[in-house]
């Protein structure tokens, strides 16, 4: 049977526009061009087949439709087309359904659905999908905002002016006052403090160059900076700046850095003099 014998109807039906290329394009020389990609799943393919054969969905012969589906898939496979797994699963299920429909129902199993019941379910699903498609189409054909009816073009809008109402209680007020006054008391105790000394990287680098200029053995950075680290005012800033400078110098190849494991002492040595 010629699967897609009458496809003129399809071409004229815009609803199925997307599937025109699924139909044989060049049947004259016997070749099929079947693009299964164009279908949205096995149910979609079955609906397309039902349409091709002008089947009435309300009174559909599932057996006939199953045969159409199977032959379609068979032809597609003969053409060695890749067919997505769910189409094959449906094909297998339809083969099973066919056998159930053709063979006398001899099972006494109450649990198991009869072939007719299975067919009815499939018919229901097809009808339901078709109905939803129709509903979507009707929805789009109906009235739509900004298309068939319009809101006001320049609505003034309703503005909401926010007015702040501040809240504070007496306890908050007194706590804030006391805290403020106390803070001042505390800071007044240390008047005229000298400005904190901060090492620059440049400064640290100068120091490092001086210190490591003498030897080429591994020396812990703390030891090298001992003189400066002793001063608590300077220890942090000296260490930070020296570390920064040492990284810079290591990058330039002036010195090497070593640390055996995290938090262990950091060792430095001059590079190049060893060997």
């Amino acid at each position: 049977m010629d699967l897609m014998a009458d496809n003129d109807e399809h071409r004229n039906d815009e609803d199925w526009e997307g599937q025109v290329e699924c139909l044989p394009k060049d049947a004259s020389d016997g070749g099929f061009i079947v693009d299964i990609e164009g279908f949205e799943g096995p149910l979609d393919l079955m609906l397309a087949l039902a349409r091709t054969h002008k089947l009435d969905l309300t009174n559909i012969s599932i057996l006939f439709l199953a045969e159409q589906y199977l032959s379609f898939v068979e032809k597609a496979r003969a053409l060695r087309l890749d067919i997505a797994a769910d189409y094959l699963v449906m094909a297998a299920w339809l083969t099973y359904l066919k056998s159930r429909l053709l063979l006398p129902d001899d099972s006494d199993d109450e649990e198991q659905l009869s072939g007719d019941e299975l067919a009815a379910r499939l018919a229901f699903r097809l009808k339901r999908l078709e109905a939803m498609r129709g509903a979507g189409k009707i929805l789009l054909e109906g009235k739509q905002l900004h298309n068939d009816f319009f809101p006001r073009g320049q609505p003034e809008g309703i503005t909401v002016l926010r007015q702040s109402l501040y809240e504070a209680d007496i306890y908050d007020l007194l706590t804030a006052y006391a805290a403020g006054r106390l803070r001042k008391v505390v800071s007044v105790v240390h008047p005229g403090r000298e400005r904190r000394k901060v090492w620059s990287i440049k400064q640290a680098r100068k120091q490092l160059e001086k210190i490591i200029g003498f030897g080429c053995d591994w020396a812990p950075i703390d030891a090298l900076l001992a003189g400066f680290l002793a001063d608590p005012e300077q220890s942090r800033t000296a260490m930070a700046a020296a570390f920064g400078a040492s990284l810079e110098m290591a990058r330039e190849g002036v010195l090497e850095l070593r640390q055996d494991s995290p938090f262990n002492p950091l060792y430095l040595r001059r590079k190049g003099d060893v060997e």
Partner: protein
Amino acid sequence: MSSITEQQRQIEALLFAATEPLDLRTLLAYLSLDDEHQEQIEEDLIVLQQQYENRGVQLVNVAGKWAFRTAIDLRDLLERHKVVPRKLSRAALETLAIIAYHQPTTRAEIEEIRGVTTSKGTLDVLLETSWIRPRGRRMTPGRPVTYGTSDGFLDHFGFDSIKELPGLAELKGAGLLDSNLPAGFDVPLPHDDMALQQDELPLEECDE
């Protein structure tokens, strides 16, 4: 024009100026009236609706709210104002219809009806239109998100409620609004009440 009360003038002005449809509660708040006046406002709205009945602009009900809109029959005149919406793909339109007619519904149920996996992009596109919204979670294993339509959907398609969806009665009669059973069973109508259904959980409760 026929006579108009001061309160009707105020309602008319508010609805004209508003950028979105207004519901009764909002109108009451804007008019600084309490709930007791609800019926009275409703009466005013009906009066206004009748006054505008045959005019070029009409007072319509959308999603339980009120808004002025141009008359449908003048659509061709307003051609130039048309905003061409991004065309929905076939898959997206189908999914939108399924959500509208089967809500609340889950992605798995949509896939069951379409017989195909729904790509995440399809739902994303629909969420972007703000015509659909995640409603809650179905009380089934995996707690899947349930989807429904939003007020934006009703506003866009000019429905007062989803009960006005085209062909709803026929589809229900044919048993096609059910997600599982073959025809012949009593089938629930779609509903987009803000309140969750019995088998829905709030969205946030996703722990477990």
